[in-house]
């Protein structure tokens, strides 16, 4: 039982990061109908920026802020210089361009920083509090929950309570109609990419220090889990992404806890295949069919 409780908390903490990363994928999917396979590489680039800034200034938090700001700018740059010109006649085009971007980003990071693993610090201790003899959460886990929770609340408020958020949603649904209503559709798309890349960078900042270590391909594994989380949630639904992230986190934690860590990656792929076969629209897809 103790083990189960521990694994549950551990799973939720990992899941929160996948949730944030899946949320970044959903943001871009909603705005541009592209699955951004370069999200992981972009996030790693932001973590390298944080690493450099922290190295130079000695402040974790300056590095943290630098990573988020860099993420925003990278999102703008990627949308304005590359993704804007992708031909949408086939959904594969966006995927191929994103994969190309992965190779470029990882190559450039390798040239600049070398291909070895670098340890990266966490701002809070990672040893867990014990409650009644069971190790539950570390300070770092609490920080992860707080950061992801803040992002979810902020995005929810942005999309449901502000004119900008409403316009972003409208632009994603019907670009031409939105233009007629005065929505600068191109600008909304750029903003969507910027926000998504910033959220992705945050997820990278949260997850890289835990078990991965900093490396140009550090986020590849996370990408698979987060992509599964987004698909479980239906790709179109922010709530689905968060739920999917927690589900994947728990699954990974239970499987590696009870069956061994080597089985965990297969469990994620199994879930991905099962969802795509059984409910390709995701677990939250009940109203989707009618919209099409």
């Amino acid at each position, binding site marked *: 039982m103790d083990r189960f409780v521990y694994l549950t908390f551990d799973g939720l903490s990992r899941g929160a990061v996948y949730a944030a990363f899946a949320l970044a994928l959903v943001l871009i999917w909603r705005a541009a109908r592209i699955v951004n396979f370069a999200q992981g590489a972009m996030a790693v680039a932001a973590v390298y920026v944080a690493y450099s800034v922290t190295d130079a200034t000695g402040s974790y938090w300056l590095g943290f802020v630098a990573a988020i700001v860099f993420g925003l700018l990278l999102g703008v740059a990627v949308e304005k210089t590359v993704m804007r010109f992708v031909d949408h006649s086939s959904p594969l085009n966006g995927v191929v361009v994103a994969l190309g971007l992965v190779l470029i980003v990882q190559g450039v990071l390798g040239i600049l920083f070398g291909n070895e693993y670098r340890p990266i610090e966490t701002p809070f201790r990672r040893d867990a509090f014990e409650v009644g003899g069971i190790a539950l959460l570390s300070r770092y886990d609490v920080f992860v929950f707080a950061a992801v929770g803040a992002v979810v609340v902020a995005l929810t408020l942005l999309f449901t309570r502000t*004119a900008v958020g409403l*316009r972003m949603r409208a632009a994603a649904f019907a670009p031409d109609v939105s233009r007629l209503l*005065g*929505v600068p559709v191109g600008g909304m798309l750029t903003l969507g990419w910027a926000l998504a890349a910033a959220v992705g960078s945050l997820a990278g900042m949260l997850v890289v220090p835990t078990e991965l270590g900093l490396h140009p391909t550090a986020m590849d594994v996370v990408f698979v889990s987060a992509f599964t989380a987004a698909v479980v949630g239906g790709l179109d639904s922010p709530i689905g992404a968060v739920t999917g992230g927690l589900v994947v986190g728990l699954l990974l934690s239970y499987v590696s806890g009870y069956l061994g860590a080597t089985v965990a990656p297969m469990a994620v792929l199994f879930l991905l295949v099962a969802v795509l076969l059984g409910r390709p629209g995701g677990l939250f897809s009940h109203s989707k069919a009618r919209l099409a």
Partner: protein
Amino acid sequence: MSTENTAHELALDHMTVRFGGLTALDDVSLRVPSGRIVGVIGPNGAGKTTLFNVICGFVTPAAGEITLDGRAWRPRPHQLNRLGIARTLQGVGQFGGLTVLENVQVGARGHRSKGEKASRERQSEKDALEALDKCGVADYAHRLPGALPYATRKRVELARALASRPRILMLDEPAGGLDPEEIRWLAELIKGAGTTVLLVEHHMDLVMSVCDEILVLDFGKPIALGTPAEISADDKVTEAYLGAAA
């Protein structure tokens, strides 16, 4: 003194649009004076919607000039809202995943009268609700448009155009699919809108009852321009609609 030109809020001069070999608009000129209701009619394929698309900047003309308030103007879709021009779409073009209120709010710019401190979001919500109320569909504010009957969605479409408080309202077949009672309601709304109206419509009774002036297009060519009385007495118009007399 010539007030002739400045009195025209919107004017099209010698407008020609070609799609490949097809001439969709052929030397069409139209003047829309401020506050007037101007109708554009013609058989299917006459170029009515193309005319709207030119004014909205969706289609670039091969020749001709558009002036807004007497100044040469090159329309761009996303600037229309700011310039006070609102257009409804043929059929319904609502965002399926947004509620009716949100749909209408996208176009509401949140005009603040002096001294009002309400946020832009609040004000645009107020404008949107007012517009929905004016169109008699305020009860559906929090529903998704996809689940509503067609006629209700047409009203939502109108509300969305009105919510930006436009000075020029462009209506593309607003009566399509409506029953006679709804069309009477629509006629009252158009007459009472207090804006300049440009109306593309097939429903003759509506056009004849609300328009101050009517332009008739046939295969992209302007064949008549005049008051409803003049148009209904025009032989060329009858011919275009009913075919040449045998």
